[in-house]
């Protein structure tokens, strides 16, 4: 499309969760000794997410992320780190993009895919964990 004059301040409320997580993202970075990593997206599509988790006794004890993408993509992964911490792998597996959307609040429909990608990043991380630990589930 054309170069669009930005009008999102009207779309994402300044006090919304989406702006809060975009401007103050939680758990940014890499976990050097992560137990698993989920890597989704590519530069061509405009979003890349790296999602790191630490797992102890079947529980996710830490989660961090690095995201290349728009505000909604960054906010989605930020929210996700908070959602998964303390959850068991089984509990984490049922966290869907709906849950992320619920936390972030209202957003334009063309931003839904950011929450979907975040869910895929988590699923990829869990898959990586299960592969490394010989579990199928």
């Amino acid at each position, binding site marked *: 499309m054309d*170069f669009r004059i*930005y009008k999102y301040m009207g779309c994402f409320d300044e006090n919304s969760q989406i702006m809060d997580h975009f401007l103050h993202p939680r758990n*940014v970075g890499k976990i050097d000794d992560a137990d698993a990593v989920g890597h989704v997206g590519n530069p061509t599509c405009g979003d890349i997410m790296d999602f790191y988790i630490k797992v102890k006794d079947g529980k996710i004890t830490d989660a961090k992320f690095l995201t*290349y993408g728009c505000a909604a993509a960054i906010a989605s992964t930020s929210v996700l780190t908070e959602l998964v911490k303390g959850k068991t792998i089984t509990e984490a597996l049922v966290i869907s993009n709906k849950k992320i959307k619920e936390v972030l609040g209202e957003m334009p429909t063309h931003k839904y895919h950011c929450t979907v990608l975040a869910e895929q990043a988590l699923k990829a991380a869990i898959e990586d964990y299960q592969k490394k630990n010989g579990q199928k589930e």
Partner: protein
Amino acid sequence: MARKAMNKAREEIASFIKAEPEEIIFTSGGTESDNLVLKGLFYSLKISRSHFIVSRIEHHAVLETCKFLEKQGAEIFYSPVDEHGLIDLSRLEKEIKNETVLISVMHANNEIGTIQPIKEIGEIVRRERERRKKEGINFPIYFHTDAVQTFGHIPIDVNDLSVDMLSASAHKLYGPKGVGLLFLKKGIKIESLVHGGEHERGRRASTENIPGIVGFAKAVELADKEMDKEIKRLSGLRDYLIEKILKSVKESRLNGQPKTRLANNVNVSIKGIEGESMLIDLDRFGIACSTGSACSSATLEPSHVLMAIGLGPELAHSSLRFTLGRWTQKRDLDYTVQKLIFVVERLRNISPLKIKN
């Protein structure tokens, strides 16, 4: 009284581009003018397959209309541009056929600011007319330019540019929104898109937007007065901003022609960061810009202009356009760069794409 005001406005605006008053058709804006040219010509022709040549970096007002006309049986050639967005003249000339009825190339691009060699294209059209005359081909060929970005910003003389049609919009020169014009050279017949009364010599029915038209003329009067001074002032500021960004932001690049470029346009790509996130971050500091990133469009497609100059999706996603205006001062640019550096650093820290140091 209203008619008098409109006539006066028409005369003033016509003389601003060295046209005749009856060659000016007032419309609702640039989009309608572009539609009127393309569809109006298509429907006025009695041949089944007319051929149009347009550049790949035209505004959507032209490109989407072309897509529509393709469905109606028209044949369109989308002419390529080089890495700076300049049209390939020899390729364009090669694509002209006996059925080519219109060449439409914008005067300057709204995204990357590149100014096209309009006079040279006018010359190509003139040569083609001579060829047709010599070979007894009794089929017209016209040249249209979408001058929405340049009208009131660069001196325009329709005779000097050798254009047959030209679109402009008032709000791009600080006039009211909802009013524009089409310059249509005397003697060219086009079908009206809006049928009804005899307004605009039967080429656009509908009661005239008198306040808009009068406001348009006022904006032209002011632009005429300020233009030369503003070109100098803004191009100085533009070059200052470009240099400062390229120097202080690692892995940044300028998009568009560096020299033959709109005085108010700065378009850069900043590697490793998505454009919309930069834009939202800059917005909180009161800096308004735009991006060619797919993320900011409902269709999730990156800018067709940036793709046409060969940028690739990654750099297109990372683009930002800053537009300077009549009230932009050097200190605003210093502030912008200062905040941009902050935003870039913050977002690069969140990004998994690492840049060279």
